[in-house]
């Protein structure tokens, strides 16, 4: 079933909208209540409730043995989480910010991702690593990285990222329940995004590994995830109005990947075969980024359906910029629409013009 943005009409009349942060907290709380082996720990997750308050109230409800403030050491957090998983617990750890997860990288890539394989399944690693990621909140250096490409390049990890309030709950519950290690990337600029959502009866969402079409369209497919999903939906709305020269608008399809690993090739390929054009959008740097892998897979599977090269709208290949310059870096509506405009709409009947660098002699 689809989890497309819920219509206000479906809302209970007097229910306050829920934020993504609240949905994540409910997911942690419900997972802890359902399974005594679920342990939450990390830096400041106890009495403070985490710097984004996602663990607010968990220590009060479950005690400091279940929701634990750790020393300030990410390799220690991930390494002890691995050991706890070896004894049958189901740890959920918080890395305070994307770039602060790097000290734990070795534990993640050399042990957590490999332990199941190394031990032929005898020591699975059912642990969840929550990482707030991405920019757009005016964070100073080391607070806005999009580090998903590192994790995607590590076999043995699942990499999951929600874009909606319902997915925040549903995907986090699925991640905690998973017997594989999940890097759960929380788009920090969506922590305060709101939707009508019932914590008493959280709506069911598709599981890990399934992409969702957030907006149906026929002209081209925008493939995105996490913080760029709302941007792409906005771009799709803008594209419907007009494009540049006042000609009729484009009807863009928007796919929210939700899960980067496993990657849902079927949903993506089915869409691109229908629309014939695709743009991948993410904040992470473009070079060797997720978009390169996705574009390659689309090309391999949809070559004869493509009307144009698969384009990418990504962060620049630069260290994440300082807050006063970050708006130039982040993929925005205009940059997405510019890319859509370069999808060789005229290629069937013009010899020149347009943004022809990628046209390959007008092969179509």
């Amino acid at each position, binding site marked *: 079933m689809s989890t497309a943005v819920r219509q206000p009409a479906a809302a209970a009349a007097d229910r306050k909208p829920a934020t993504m942060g609240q949905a994540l907290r409910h997911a942690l709380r419900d997972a802890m209540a359902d399974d005594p082996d679920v342990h939450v720990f990390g830096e400041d997750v106890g009495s403070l409730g985490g710097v984004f308050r996602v663990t607010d109230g968990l220590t009060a409800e479950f005690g400091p043995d279940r929701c634990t403030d750790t*020393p300030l050491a990410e390799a220690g957090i991930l390494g002890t989480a691995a050991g706890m998983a070896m004894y049958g617990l189901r740890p959920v750890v918080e890395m305070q910010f994307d770039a602060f997860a790097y000290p734990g990288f070795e534990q993640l890539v050399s042990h957590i991702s490999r332990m199941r394989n190394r031990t032929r399944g005898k020591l699975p690693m059912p642990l969840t690593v929550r990482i707030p990621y991405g920019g757009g909140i005016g964070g100073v250096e080391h607070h806005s990285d999009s580090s998903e490409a590192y994790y995607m390049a590590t076999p043995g990890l699942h990499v999951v990222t929600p874009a909606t309030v319902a997915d925040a709950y549903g995907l986090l519950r699925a991640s905690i329940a998973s017997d594989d290690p999940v890097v759960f990337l929380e788009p920090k600029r969506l922590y305060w995004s709101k939707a009508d959502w019932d914590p008493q009866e959280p709506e069911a969402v598709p599981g890990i590994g399934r992409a969702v079409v957030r907006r149906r369209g026929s002209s081209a497919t925008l493939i995105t995830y996490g913080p760029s999903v709302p941007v792409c939906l906005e771009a799709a709305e803008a594209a419907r109005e007009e494009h540049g020269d006042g000609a009729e608008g484009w009807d863009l399809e928007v796919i929210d990947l939700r899960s980067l690993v496993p990657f849902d090739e079927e949903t993506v390929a089915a869409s691109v075969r229908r629309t014939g054009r695709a743009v991948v959008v993410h904040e992470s740097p473009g070079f060797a980024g997720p978009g390169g892998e996705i574009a390659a897979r689309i090309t391999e599977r949809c070559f004869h359906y493509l009307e144009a090269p698969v384009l990418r709208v990504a962060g620049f290949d630069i260290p994440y910029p300082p807050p006063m310059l970050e708006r130039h870096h982040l993929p925005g509506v205009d940059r997405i629409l510019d890319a859509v405009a370069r999808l060789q709409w005229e290629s069937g009947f013009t010899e020149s013009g347009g943004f022809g660098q990628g046209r390959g002699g007008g092969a179509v």
Partner: protein
Amino acid sequence: MTVLEQPGAYAPAPPPSWRPRTDAAPLLPDAEPYRVLGTRGTRTAQDGAPGPDAGLLRRLYAAVVHGRRFNEQATALTRQGRLAVYPSSRGQEACQVAAALALGERDWLFPSYRDTLAAVARGLDPVEVLSLLRGDWHHGYDSPGTRVAPLCTPLATQLPHAVGLAHAARLKGDEVAALALVGDGGTSEGDFHEALNFAAVWQTPAVFLVQNNGFAISVPLAKQTAAPSLAHKAVGYGIPGRLVDGNDAVAVHEVLCEALDRARAGGGPTLVEAVTYRLEAHTNADDATRYRTDQEVEVWREHDPVTLLERELRDRGLLDEATVREAEEAAERQAAELRERMHQDPPLDPAELFAHVYAQPTRQLRDQADQLRAELEAEQRSAAAAQSAGSTTAGEETR
């Protein structure tokens, strides 16, 4: 009462009444490594203790004799191409054996790549233990079943695992301790620091045994640390540090048993530095003559863990020629069996490469498994075709 929360325990005292939260003196290691072997008539006479139990001495002796032979055999297997590499613990057998024998049945061992002997001494199948170094898989034994974590290659990274596992056991109310083995080089790693700090703050039932064998491949301890001793590092974490003669199997066994008992009883972690020496090169691929002299090695040969135990047993009249022969024959039998089994090619299944990456293979992995299977089938077909062509040719020649 929770395991972790001690209200107010860590509140800083305001100045000017500041004082250390813990008295450092009881945490400090002794100035000299603790020894038992060869101290009869000195230490035991002084404190009136009866000396090590004869049964324990005999068990340790049989184990180090076997351990020495195991090291020799494993090194020989590298020359025969049956092991990809072998980091020998020759010279460190006392630590290896004492660590294994000090463990309670429910305790866990967290070995490094040089600690194959410790796993074997715990009773694991040596062929399974050598899987990593043979190269048929990254790990060969049942870790949960044997309570021995995989041999860990990245230095000190298994120490936080030991802390986490021991912590989990304590949270579940189980009396389980974890013993993690690391070398002198490993103490420079960040994970060593983080593991000891977590263990200390959480009062985790974990014991850390540093086998200070003098070298991190080629780099001597003096270039590794400026600490008074590696055991002194414990004090910075607020846990006791113990310094022990690592070639004295009885002393190492005693110190580890004490530390493990204390850990299981809720007394928190201990750091033990065992001073020992790697008699062989780092691995069969290393050349130790580039960084140390024969004279230095000779000094340590005089302080050999096998000889030390043997001398003690003889002095106490616990060792006759029959016992020596029995131990050596048993070691020889086990070495011969290992040699024979290692000369058989291990079963290999390429499909298994994809089977354990995730609980369920992803679509991409299923595709890749199919690809490899098709390649192998094609390989078999062309091999079969070549063979039948060859036999035809051979047949023609005989005509």
